[in-house]
């Protein structure tokens, strides 16, 4: 599926616990399309760090990047220090607001908060206006629509018709609604139509929004997948240690590649 990704694309990726398609990370790196603008929904971790480490990333819009209990994201932090990537520091609800604007076909969404922050000072795409519905004053920030070219995530299942079960991780639907392309890896593909039963339908992202689905058992590993398997904290810690240096990162990625071959 990595062939859908072209240089310069804006790529939306989900938060650690929502269903990260780690299975797609290596194919994306091998495919090699660079100058990517990542949008973390609303924060990033291992996948972002590895794409940055592989040199494919031009900018990162995010509310945070870290490896959780394993500490800071080493290649991301190094790239920040070197000025190798452009940062668009945000706050979680601003990323959700930008996606919601795209979902609604609106040019922007208003968001409370933010005024007086250095986030706002460094974002020339955000705009402060006086609330037109107030009697005067009442400044409020407008967040422009975030329209990713492609969204990539991993979930437990899809059906043969391309319907994808996202359960209660509805940010995955929000990302898909806002995106041109939606690439999904899954633990399993089921025979029955997930929309045919109201119980399963409640957690479905309909095929209408899905570009491609691929089978990838344990596809979130070393992240966990809700309702399926826990996070492999030891492996993330092993990565965190290895990736402290560019050489260590290259060695880790090369080794993992050999293991997967």
């Amino acid at each position, binding site marked *: 599926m990595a062939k859908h990704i072209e240089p310069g694309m804006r790529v939306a990726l989900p938060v650690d*616990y929502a269903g990260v398609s780690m299975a797609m990370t290596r194919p994306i790196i091998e495919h090699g399309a660079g100058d990517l603008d990542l949008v973390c929904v*609303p924060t990033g971790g291992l996948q972002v760090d590895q794409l940055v480490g592989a040199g494919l990333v031009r900018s990162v819009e995010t*509310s945070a990047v870290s490896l959780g209990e394993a500490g800071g994201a080493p290649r991301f932090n190094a790239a920040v220090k070197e000025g190798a990537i452009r940062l668009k520091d945000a*706050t*979680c609800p601003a990323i959700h607001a930008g996606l919601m604007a795209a979902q609604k076909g609106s040019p922007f969404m208003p968001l409370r908060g933010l005024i007086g*922050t*250095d986030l*706002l000072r460094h974002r020339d795409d955000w705009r402060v206006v006086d609330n037109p519905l107030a009697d005067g004053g009442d*400044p409020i920030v407008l967040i422009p629509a975030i329209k990713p070219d492609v969204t990539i995530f991993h979930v437990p299942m899809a059906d043969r018709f391309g319907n994808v079960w996202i359960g209660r991780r*509805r940010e995955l639907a929000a990302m898909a609604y806002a995106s041109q392309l939606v690439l999904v890896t899954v633990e399993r593909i089921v025979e029955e139509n997930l929309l045919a039963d109201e119980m399963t339908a409640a957690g479905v992202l309909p095929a209408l929004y899905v570009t491609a689905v691929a089978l990838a058992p344990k596809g979130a590993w070393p992240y966990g997948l809700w309702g399926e398997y826990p996070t492999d904290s030891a492996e993330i810690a092993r990565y965190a240690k290895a990736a402290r240096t560019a050489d260590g990162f290259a060695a880790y990625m090369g080794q993992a590649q050999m293991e997967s071959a």
Partner: protein
Amino acid sequence: MAEVLPREVLICTIARLLDGVRHVAVGASSPIPAAGAMLLRAMKEAEGAVGPRISILGSVEHNFFTNGSAELFDCAGQGRIDAFFLGGGQIDGFGNVNLVGAGDYPRSSVRWPGSFGSAYLYFVVPRVILFREEHTPRVFVEKVDFISAPGVSPDGVFRSGGPIALLTGKALFRFDKTRPGFELESVHPGHDLAEIKEATGFRFAHDAEPRQTALPGRATLDLLRGRVFDELAETYPEFAAQMRRELGTVDA
């Protein structure tokens, strides 16, 4: 008076700061705030009252939301979250919080994860408790290098929330948004004013002889060491186990 661990003092102080809230949200990697909220719930229920609702964020097992990661912020915007905790790589005397990095932005010399939801939640959650155990001049600075979320806002800026207190490993401060600034409320056992002044990079108001932070009574400690640590063990097993190991030492 029973012997009390320093972290038990923190937990009991948090329960006191939360008194009266209906709904508190805590982070998945914040066992001490979670323990404080759980202790308050246990105390309320022991009195026959209704305890606060506790939402633990990012936890798969204790996820009471069903609308993705946006729901916490929506919920706060609706006024349904009364209390929240915020840490910070740097916190200054105006209540400004920096979660982004030290040095010149964007090429920070030290980069922290990022602002998360602070730039919104700090504005709309009525009782934000700043909590950072490490009490050093590196953390508590005169002026933060980057404002992830400001302690106060000018008149005319919509703001229904903000900081009410700062709790550290050494002391409890109240935040006075009219000055604005912090006021030393009490000093934890084993610490004193001189030490706290040295460890704090910003100026703060204080009595000449500050009080000691109130210690929990027997009944509270029993609730904490019984029901609350049991509940805590479900979500924060390592933390609960460690507390129990330390208590083993204390009890011995």
